[in-house]
């Protein structure tokens, strides 16, 4: 699971969860994969990203590296920043670990890079 995916994940559909975002990450295995850097793509994605969530997620998995805590102004032209974001969003991959609902503490296991977001019948 890449952090970009995590950035869209929510446990909102759970019963009793209002926001369910962002999910906490408890990563036991993080993999860094090389992904071609496309600044335009990253810039476009950045529009849809919840940056604080990304920051915390990156921080939680220990690959914060020097990702700025605050989103840079005019990031479209800041290739350095975009590269960092690119790394955080697309190159960091949680292979094994857990996603934890911030409200209920419900844990969603991540195995083989696939988060299992299935809920039980009584959790919906």
């Amino acid at each position, binding site marked *: *699971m*890449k952090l*970009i*995916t995590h950035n*869209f*994940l*929510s*446990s*909102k*559909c*759970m019963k009793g969860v209002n926001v*369910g*975002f962002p999910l906490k990450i408890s990563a036991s295995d993080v993999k860094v994969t090389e992904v071609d850097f*496309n600044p*335009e*793509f*990253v*810039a*476009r*994605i950045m*529009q*849809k990203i*919840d940056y604080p969530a990304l920051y915390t997620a990156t921080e939680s998995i220990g690959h914060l590296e020097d990702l700025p805590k605050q989103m840079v102004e005019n990031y479209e032209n800041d290739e350095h920043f975009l590269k960092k974001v690119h790394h955080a969003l697309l190159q960091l991959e949680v292979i094994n670990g857990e996603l934890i609902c911030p409200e209920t503490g419900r844990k*969603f296991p991540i195995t*083989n*890079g*696939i*988060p*299992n*977001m*299935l*809920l039980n*019948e009584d959790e*919906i």
Partner: protein
Amino acid sequence: MSSKEKTARSVALEQTYVHDVYEQLDAEGLHNEPWPKVEQFIDELEPGSIVCDIGCGNGKYLDINKSIFNIGAERSFKLSNIAREKQNEVIILDNLSLPFRDESLDAVISIAVIHHFASTERRVCALQELSRVLRIGGKLIISAWAMEQSHRKFETQDVLVPWHLPKQIKNPDFPISKDVFDYDVLSIYNGSYYNAKEESNTNFKSQKEINKKRNKFRKRKSLSTDSDSLTGSETCYSFIRRALQKLSGGRRLAMNRPWFLENWSNCTKTNNQKKYMDTDVCDCYDCIENIKDLPIELRRIDDFDVQLDIKFNSASTTTMSSFNDVSIRSKSVSNLRLSETECRSVSKQSSMDEDVKSTKSEDVSIASTNSLKKPKLVKQKKSICEDEMDELLDEPKDMTSSNNSPPEYKVLHEKYHQKQRKSVLKQRSLNEELMSTDRLKEKEQLKRNIQKQASLNEEYITQRHVFDSIKDSIFTSKGFHFIKMEFTNKIKNSTTNIEKVAGSSLKNGFVRIFQNWKNSDLISPTIPENESMDTFRKKLPYIEEKPNENTERRSSKEESSDSSKDSSLQSDTSVDSEDSFASVIYVPKSENMSPILSPGPISPRWKTTTAGSSLFSSLPNSPKIKQSSCPTSPKFKQLPLSLYPLTKQMSNPKPATDFHFCEKADNEFSYKDVAPSTKRQLNKTLAQKYSVQQIPKFRRTVNNTPSMANQAVETKSSTSNSNNTTTIEIPIITQTMCESPEPKETPPVDSRNERLKKIREILSKNPNFGSRTKDKSFPIVRRSSITNGKVEAVAKPLPKLLNLELFNPAVDDLDSDSSCISSPDSISDNFMAINCEKQSTIGLPDAVYGPVYPMKKTLLEAAADVANSLDQTVQKVIKYSPKAKRKVDTNEVMSILQRKYVDNEVLSESFAWPENWNEECHKHLTEFAEQISEKLLKQIDHYEEKNEACNESGYSDAYIARLSEELNDLTKISSEIQKQNEYLNKLSSKDKKLMQKKERQKKLLCDQCDKQQLGSTCKESSRLENCTCENRSQSDIKFKSLKNVSSDNTASTTPSTTSSSATLVKDLEMKLNGHDNISELSSCSSNINASDSNGFEEDPIPLNSNRGPRKSLTKNGGKTCENTNSGTKALSTSSTFNKSTDSSDSIESVISNKTGQGKESSEETKSQRSLDFSLTSNEGSTASLASNMEWKNIKTTTPGGGTTSDSKKPRLQNTKKSFNNSSMDELSEKLLAEHNNEKSSESLDSIQSEKNSGGEITFHRYYHVFREGELDNLIEKYVENLHIISSYYDHSSWCIIAEKVRVWTI
């Protein structure tokens, strides 16, 4: 129905038919080619879009557009992993609870997902979720299967679509799909689909259903083929009935509302629906090509406003997608109007058909138009419908137990015919709304009839009291003799020309004979003569079933009739009218019931009647025979145990009575009274009689034979050739061969003779009788039988006796038990009976022939030859006879030999009696007897010589060397065995009990080997095992050298046995010594016995040796199998052997102990075998007694063949060789069969094996196919913020591209 239930059902359905299916399919199962329009949709997305493909499958849409970020979402773990392997970002999620932020995604792809939701509610929920996660302005593409597809038509929107592989989907040939279809339907109906989380489980279940389904299929086919001239109301009815029963049962479990009942009740009304059906049906004809991959239609699974309900209509249930069904429906539609109008005017059959169809069509129509109905209305109907339902369900039962015909017991067949008709009427009436009144009446009638029947039996019996004796005498004698004659002729032919006989099975011969007899004797006018053959043939299965039923005769018949109406009809008549020979054949089994019904009245009655005359004293025996035989057989089939001891005792006393019968007529009664006495006494008496009085018995018979001779002459008379007379005796021999009731036969004959006498006395006035007696021509006999027809009505009980004696062989084939039953009279039989009872069917037939065989060796051989050419089953029976040799008591061998001669003498004497009647006959008889005696002598001499030669040559045989080697290696083997034990323990940890047993046995064996000291039980078990080994080796050797075997065994085994026997238990020693002595003293037979006994004694060594290496190495599964199998046989043989020895010693207690031991040992061996199986994994459980029995038979036959090979005639030898060969072949076959059986049995347990053997599994996926515009409507109605941009049809799916828009609510 609450929403909870609905959702639960939906969830279950989806889980079973969507999620689980996808979980089990591999990537190949998915259509791999992305749809161009979807590709286009993806390509047109803005770069940098976050796109989630919900239901991404194997991820084929995840890498289309590189400029967007694709998130694949899938519910299937398997598929998600597949997609993940392609370096895609994958999430496992459920469309109903998408774990995404609101309005976070730029595009959502939902291809072929929505149609998997089982309810509109859930579909809407899914759509709403899709919309929720979509950002404003985000685009959504949805595709769902269309109901209107070019290559397939869906009757309903909710379907289960079979899914092999994508290629095969359009392939019309789906071998399994049909069955699975049916299964699926059924499972759903039974509510099992809730539990059927795994396809495999469901498949397992399907296996059971398949047969029924296929039957239905066939029926339906027939219906469809000649739909224009449908006359099979019964088939139609039964089909419907079954379907209804199943559905109703399932319905009640799974669903609250009996859906089809409403339909049922609506039958008369709905014309609109019929019209609808017309349109619907027309299409179905075009579907022929696609029949097999037509989906299962789930009717009313989702009534949008009404309720969530999985519904199948009856028609669709049974064959959902089958063309036949369709045709039926169509036909019904076409005939609907007609049916309504004609229903009452036209013949009932047609109306029946029409009704059925109409109902079906109603179901269909209703189901298809389900949405139109409102739930409340349905529910109102429900109550009424349920009542009807119950009635309907009850109907069949009533019919089964109903006997509406006027109860005239004597015309049973008529009655049954009527009953049959009645049932038919009922069936017809079912569909008409005949109901409570008629039904009540019918029920009452039925009750009355049943009672009448019950009472009738008694009445029948009592009324016949007077006639019974006469009848018995006449019929038994007549039929008996007639059969004998036929039999003898057959035998002659066979002996002289085996090839001729070979073509026709023994059974056929029997049948023919019986037919002749029946035709000749056919008395009851009610029974058509032409019936005989057909009835007979049809009877066979029917009667086979009978033994299992201890219930009343009536009920069984009714059941059978119900099950198979045509056959049962005829069979019933034939059975009831015992006149027909066919009925005679089966009677033994039917008798099982009759004695139960009226055992008390008959025997006492006869006693009273016969009390005056000593001659009749024998009569009580015959009923006893019946009883004994009957209970014994049922016992094996687990009849009430209470009968069991009684039967034993009964059987025992009988021979005694026979023997003493001439001496003291009163003694018989005493014996009867004594019958309840303990086994020991009986055994004692038996033993005494056996050893001492055997000869006198025959003399007695001679004395009595006058009557017999009279009978013979009277009935058969005429021909009076020595051959004929001899044949009379020969049949007995042959029978003994087949059945082993030889000794038994003679006594009944005697009794019959006596009866005859009495009858003559009483009925001398009867002209017919006189003419009959004096008629010497064969045809005259028939006439006489016909004349008997007057008395005929009484005839029943006696023919039964005949049946028991004569036809047991045939029956024996079917039931090994019956053989034991049939031969309670013979001493050996007595022993055997005990054995059988204790061993439970293992050793039954072996000992039976013991005494008989030596007496009529030549005859036996000839018979054996005949048997060789006969059917397998017959062969088995006959095979026992050669084995009998072994079982003859060594002590008694001499006596037996004497008896032989005596027998011959007796024969001559008995035949001499006829002198008065016919001197020629007497001449022939004497000549024949002399010839026989000469032959016997020759044979004996020959045999002795051969044995000697064999003994001499035997020592040089390699086999002996091997044995000695094995002996030397004994210690090694024991150690190996210990190792094996450990190994076994490890391996067979599953069955701890078995293991323990095994261990015990093993230890025992080890002790044996090491110490050579055996506890009695220990020795027994070892013996058994050894026997296995021994037999095995014997068989092998025999295959190599036919004749040397026995001698070799004796030679090789004797020394070892003697040495080892020193430390053996007293009894065992005694046995051994006796055997050795006997072997030394006596010639052929004794040698055989000794060899056997020695083999048994010596067994431990070779067995251990063989077993150890084999097990440890697990080299030859087949060999182990053989060993194990032979072990069972050895068990029987050993037990019998023990018995014989004991009897010779006349130690009753020993016998009981031995038997008990034998039993234990058998159990142990069984356990061992099972262990072996676990070890080698080649063999299955010991459960298959039949196979074991067969094995035993084979084994026995092989040695028997070897022994019998001594026969004088080269031709015979050849035949025997062939026999051996055949037996070898049989052995191999049996091995294979056993393997297969075990495999199958195992496969039943494990699904995987089933998969392997059963072939490909067809998965079914649930689809809700969307009508045109349905999806659009859903979106527009329930997902307000989705704006449909375009809607189109593509790839059999309705596709919608929508955009999320902001909805302003004011």
